[in-house]
């Protein structure tokens, strides 16, 4: 068949113009997000920067004299929570991911577990607070301790850790597993020596991002009955605690403007923890992308 050249109507000018319009629209829309972040940072910086002193980091909160108040108890509470959350959610989450990805036979049971974990990742954090209150505070009699708080946050991030770890594990090419099996390796030897090391950067990225979510949570801890005014540092996992988001919430809630400055300074401290963590996650991912060669 012969095609007459006149049948093509390229309309190149028109197509290029549409391309330009779409590109501009996307650029503007993406800037909106960045703009709001910028406004937030500037506002918080203005309000809180001058209140951010070493005394702010080393003093306990004070209801009567805001100018002497500090974030020491909340900062330590957050550190405790983070440590407990890491040491509970990482082993359980990675083990669950390894089981589901490497050992469980594909079938209904695995599918059922998979669906449930995916759903759990979408459950609002306040629901985890209710669960934590029922299970850890009341049933296990842990009280309003930092341990109960850490365990609750562990439950909260567990689905995210499992999903991120599974994705990292399944990204390891099957050919590497087959190579190991062909040498007479068992499943566990294959996973331990080849699959886990190759998936580790991906798992770490997921864990860091999950933790940074846990660190910013206030509502589940409020449900647990965590205190907002604490004038001591937890000495053991069974001690009461507060956390930075709770402290910020408490300060914001007060009518006096001084406390709002304190809240802004607290937010700066929180961001000062979260942004480096996210940067670390991005760094690990970039390093991994460069390193892997399959």
């Amino acid at each position: 068949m012969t095609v007459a050249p006149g049948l093509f109507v390229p309309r190149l000018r028109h197509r290029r113009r549409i391309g330009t319009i779409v590109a501009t629209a996307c650029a503007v829309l993406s800037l909106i997000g960045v703009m709001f972040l910028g406004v937030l940072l500037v506002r918080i910086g203005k309000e809180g920067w001058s209140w951010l002193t070493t005394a702010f980091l080393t003093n306990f909160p004070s209801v009567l004299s805001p100018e002497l108040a500090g974030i020491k108890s909340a900062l330590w509470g957050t550190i405790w929570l983070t440590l407990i959350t890491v040491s509970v959610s990482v082993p359980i989450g990675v083990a669950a991911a390894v089981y589901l990805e490497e050992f469980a036979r594909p079938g209904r049971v695995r599918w059922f577990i998979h669906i449930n974990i995916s759903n759990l990742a979408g459950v609002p954090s306040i629901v985890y607070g209710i669960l934590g209150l029922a299970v850890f505070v009341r049933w296990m009699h842990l009280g309003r301790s930092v341990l109960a708080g850490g365990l609750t946050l562990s439950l909260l991030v567990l689905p995210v850790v499992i999903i991120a770890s599974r994705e990292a594990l399944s990204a390891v090419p099957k050919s590497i597993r087959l190579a190991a099996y062909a040498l007479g390796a068992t499943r566990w030897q294959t996973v331990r020596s080849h699959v886990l090391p190759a998936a580790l950067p991906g798992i770490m990225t997921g864990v860091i991002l999950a933790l940074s979510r846990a660190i910013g949570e206030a509502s589940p801890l409020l449900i647990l009955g965590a205190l907002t005014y604490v004038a001591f540092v937890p000495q053991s996992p069974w001690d009461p605690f507060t956390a930075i988001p709770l402290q910020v919430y408490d300060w914001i809630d007060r009518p006096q403007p001084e406390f709002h400055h304190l809240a802004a300074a607290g937010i700066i401290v929180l961001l000062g923890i979260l942004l480096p963590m996210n940067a670390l996650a991005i760094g690990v991912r970039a390093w991994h992308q460069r390193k892997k060669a399959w």
Partner: protein
Amino acid sequence: MVNVVGEQPTREKSAPLVPAPHVDAARHKPSEPLPPAEQVLRAEHLTIRYGTFAAVKEVTLDVSARRVTAIIGPSGCGKSTLLRAMNRMNDFVTGASVQGRLFYRGEDIYRAGFDPVELRLRIGMVFQKPNPFPKSIFKNVAWGPSINGYRGDIEELVEHALRQAALWDEVKDKLHESAYALSGGQQQRLCIARAIAMQPDVLLMDEPCSALDPIATARIEDLIYQLKAHYTVVLVTHNMQQAARVSDRTAFMYMGELIEVDDTAMIFTMPGEQRTQDYITGRFG
């Protein structure tokens, strides 16, 4: 048994059907009868299905010790499936099921309770695409022996395996660098070294040269030819010239069936079956 001692070609000699594949006469003398050989692997009425699709149908085949047995046939004829059955790598394919029997040195490897891990210690495998571990060259070779409790001098073993795989001279100064820094042909020879470091009884090779350029292919072929002094090799290839160059016995498969198996020289000069002849003369496939 098909491969009995001194079985003489009974068909009359005729002109080769294939425009003679280049065979190094010095190292390959097809006219000489092969010395006696023991049987290492035997498939008996072996049928392998993926779901309901039968990829291998009723195949009966013997593999003799210290020979290179080539399995040829067009894509999708079931040759790789048959090969992967021999060290039970099909276990990792969901939906694969096996009927019939497959014996390794007299033992049915598909009987209930048979340990495939133990089998794979004795039957190594080289894959189609080079698949080194994301580790150093040394660790790639040393890992198999070390997880299997090798008590000898591991450095000596690694050197020996790399020498046998004709890779030692190229990598001896960078043993602790990443295996991914090697070229494709070198990576494939590393995978061969990794397999033979286990001192396997049998080496299964699944189109080991299909991802390589002609020069790397020639090196691997030389290597396969030398390996049969120590190992039993089963080679899957869709390259007929390769089968003619390196193998002693050739099996031709088509649509899941084993059409014909004979000494390589016979298959390429006087095939017994019309379909074999059509395939090796390039009428299809």
